[in-house]
């Protein structure tokens, strides 16, 4: 069996008219279950492209991606949706909550598509909101919450389905330092206490230090892949 994520020579080429943009140029990468990985790199280096492939939102042009032994490159659209639903949680830079819909309903969403009974959806979503410290805010709409709180709702939505992996593309990009620290604290705890594999993209060294492993991407290739003890920055 081995690694949860196993990528071999991933290529992603975007066609823009006559020219092809090579966003990934042969990325090979393995990530163990329970890992905490930060992906860094300059703008346009291919971080988001890699994250989208790892998150099964997109498929590589070339190369193989095995997630839990499943060949993602060969999966169809609906299969990918199902894999995302069962194994992956997403946290986005811009929160991406459904507007004018309560925190609870936002957090319920993955269970809704999994066909979980309504009552159970509510209970589990409420538990997930409690986990991110939002008890009592279940019926608030996103517009009634601060950025940090919105991002916590997004994390609750990501973890409600008990995924193996949580993917966060610049989760603190829109947040102030204080909120960023809170969010990272939650992610850190999810990794340590719940054993959820976390992969996050960030531009900030401070944030990257939460991760046990830092990968730097440059021009669609892995430039460095360094494991080290996470620095004890922030904390709670």
């Amino acid at each position, binding site marked *: 069996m081995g690694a949860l994520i196993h990528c071999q020579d991933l290529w992603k080429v975007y066609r823009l008219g006559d020219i092809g943009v090579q966003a990934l140029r042969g990325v090979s990468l393995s990530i163990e279950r329970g890992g905490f990985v930060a992906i860094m790199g300059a703008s346009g280096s291919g971080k988001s492209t890699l994250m989208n492939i790892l998150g099964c*939102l*997109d498929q590589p042009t070339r190369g193989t991606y095995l997630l839990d032994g499943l060949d993602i490159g060969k999966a169809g659209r609906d299969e990918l*949706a199902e894999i995302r639903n069962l194994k992956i949680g*997403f946290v986005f830079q811009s929160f*991406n909550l459904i507007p004018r819909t309560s925190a609870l309903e936002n957090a319920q969403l993955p269970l*809704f*598509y999994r*066909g979980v009974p309504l009552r159970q959806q509510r209970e589990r979503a409420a538990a997930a909101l409690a986990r991110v410290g939002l008890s009592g805010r279940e019926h608030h709409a996103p517009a009634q919450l601060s950025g940090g709180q919105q991002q916590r709702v997004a994390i609750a939505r990501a973890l409600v389905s008990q995924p193996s992996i949580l993917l966060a593309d610049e989760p603190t990009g829109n947040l102030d330092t204080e909120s960023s620290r809170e969010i990272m604290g939650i992610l850190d705890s999810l990794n340590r206490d719940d054993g959820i594999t976390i992969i996050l993209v960030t531009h900030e060294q401070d944030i990257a230090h939460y991760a046990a492993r830092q990968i730097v991407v440059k021009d669609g290739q892995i430039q460095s892949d360094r494991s080290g003890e996470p620095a004890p920055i922030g904390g709670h």
Partner: protein
Amino acid sequence: MGAFIWLTVLTAFRILFRNRMRAGLTMLGIIIGVGAVIAMVSIGHGAKAVVQAQVASMGTNVIIVLPGATTVGGVRGSQGSGVTLTLSDALELKKRVPLLSETGWSKRDVMQIVYGNKNWNTPVNGISPSYLTIRDWSYSSGGPFTQADMEAGARVALIGQTVVENLYDVGEEPVGSVIRIKNVPFRVIGVLAPKGQSAQGSDQDDIIFIPFSTAERKVLGTQFLGSVGALFASTDHPDDLPAAVEGIREVLRARHRLQPEQQDDFTIRTQVDIGLVQEGTSQTLTLMMFSVASISLLVGGIGIMNILLVSVTERTREIGVRMAVGAKRRHILMQFLIEAMTLSLVGGLLGIVFGVIGAQITTVVAGWPTIISAESILVAFFFSLAVGLFFGLYPANKASRLNPIEALRYE
């Protein structure tokens, strides 16, 4: 799947309510279309029921032969204006056209009727007893006269409801009383059950029947002895009507010695002819209402499609999020189809309500009878559902085919 549909419907209603102004305008086409159909169908049904009752009041499978040729537009000389039909024609028809189960005849003239110190002008019909059977007359009191009365030239009369109302006091029993027709005393032996208006709009209850022989001898005068104002016949089965009509025509033409190039000197009518005229008008009405309805529904459907396309664009990010957390194509497809059908269904229900109210108002204001059928409501219901489904398909399909990454990145 149950929870999915339930929540999606709930969400659809919430979105509809949130954008109620926009939704209301979108639904206008459906509301007008369905409302028009419901109102028009109920008016149509009401009118049809009236016509049917009128046609039925003629009796069943009735053939009427009138003297004189049919002229353009079906207008003919008044009954009895010619002398082309005679009693012997009637007797001959009975013998020679076996499809006829009954034949009868009548002759009429408007006369003054006197009872006590009251008088009333009404058509007095001298008829054969069989006429009463053919025309399906029944009696609210008393009963018909018989063949014996006919042969004896008895002075007995059957009077219609309108005559009763004009000659008798309320609560007074006409049967057994004596009225005077042209100063000849007649004993009233029956009151006819009311039939209401005829298909031509005349009051069928303003009438008096007396035996034909009595009428000829005592009342109508002997000027054209043996002539009749109209012949009546009936068949056992409606399918026999066309053949019977042909039989009658043949016999009468032979008796009247008409050459092949000559026109009939009589006119044959059946209920079918009378019903057809009415049906023609109601078909025009039906056609008109369906064009109004289908245009409104088309406009309504396009409105729904338009608003949904706007909604899909506005909610592109939401669609991306839903896809990211595991919505499959069919989930997104269903979500937008349900939203489209919610719109069209609410529009349809409002249309049904307005249609029913419109029909009631028509009855009250214009005095037209209306019948609201469960059938038309059900059809309207499913039709509006179908409109939503049909016009929702394109936007829903478009939403379900979005690329999740592009949708998530949409500004």
